[in-house]
């Protein structure tokens, strides 16, 4: 289980990757990052930088907000826990 100390966003990376039948290593190679980074993104242990998020969006042909969902944006003020 990932604690609140680390988890900030949910994402559809694993689903989008599976739809294309790519392994984590395949996706990592396409994004020029390590496989561990893909694993950390998919398991919610790491949020990408803005440049990496844009690269992911471009690769899947989707806007960033279609891939990443920010729980904190659902009505919560910064510093509050999302409902």
């Amino acid at each position, binding site marked *: 289980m990932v604690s609140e100390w680390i988890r900030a966003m949910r994402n559809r990376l694993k689903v989008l990757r599976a739809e294309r039948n790519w392994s984590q290593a395949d996706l990592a190679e396409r994004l020029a990052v390590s496989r561990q980074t893909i694993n*950390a993104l998919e398991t919610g242990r790491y949020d990408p930088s803005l440049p990496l998020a844009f690269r992911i969006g471009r690769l899947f042909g989707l806007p960033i907000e279609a891939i990443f969902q920010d729980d904190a944006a659902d009505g919560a003020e910064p510093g509050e826990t999302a409902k």
Partner: protein
Amino acid sequence: MNGDVAMERERPRSAMRIVVMTAVGLLVGLPMGWVVGKVLKAADLRTLPWSDQAAMALAMLFIATGALIAIFAATRRGQAILIDPNAPDYDRPARPGVAAYYLLQAAVLLLAGAMLAAPVVYLVIVNTTRADAGPTIMLAVLVGFALQTALNLAVWRRSDELMRRVIAESAALCFWALQGVFFLWACGERLGVLPAISSWDAVTVMMGGYLIASTIVFYRRGLG
């Protein structure tokens, strides 16, 4: 059916993994054991201060880890295992530069271990035969430190953003924890309620602290 096939495939792979791990363990363990045996024979380590004992233990850990990474990074199969220990096959070629990246990490660990062990080895072995070797060993440590700094910068430059985050968070956690420890200890020392510690004691605590901090961050970021 598919499960059976998967299990049949799993068996030789697991057996191969055990054989490879045993071979690598022997390759690293035998020379390490020899060195540790020589040190133990040269002097009774139990008579050394706690910080020298801890420094030697940390140094051996760094050297063993560095040697393991270097051995794995030397072959295509080993590189694949380093990249993904659970990969469906170990034949996927690593990206150009990945082997060099792992070798850089191995070199950093080997140098860290050697530099941490050097003063203790000097006190235990060299000092008894060549008391004037101190400045020479200090010069070697300085050269090693300069080289390690350059290697650390190279590792940072080649790391992707997650690894850079892990390095930065480890350093931050280590600083946050140890500045408190050292501040409180220094207060206690000034007030006469705690014994004085040497700079070598402090360095050993810091190295151990960084090892613990980086392990925590490593696992929390899913890299374990």
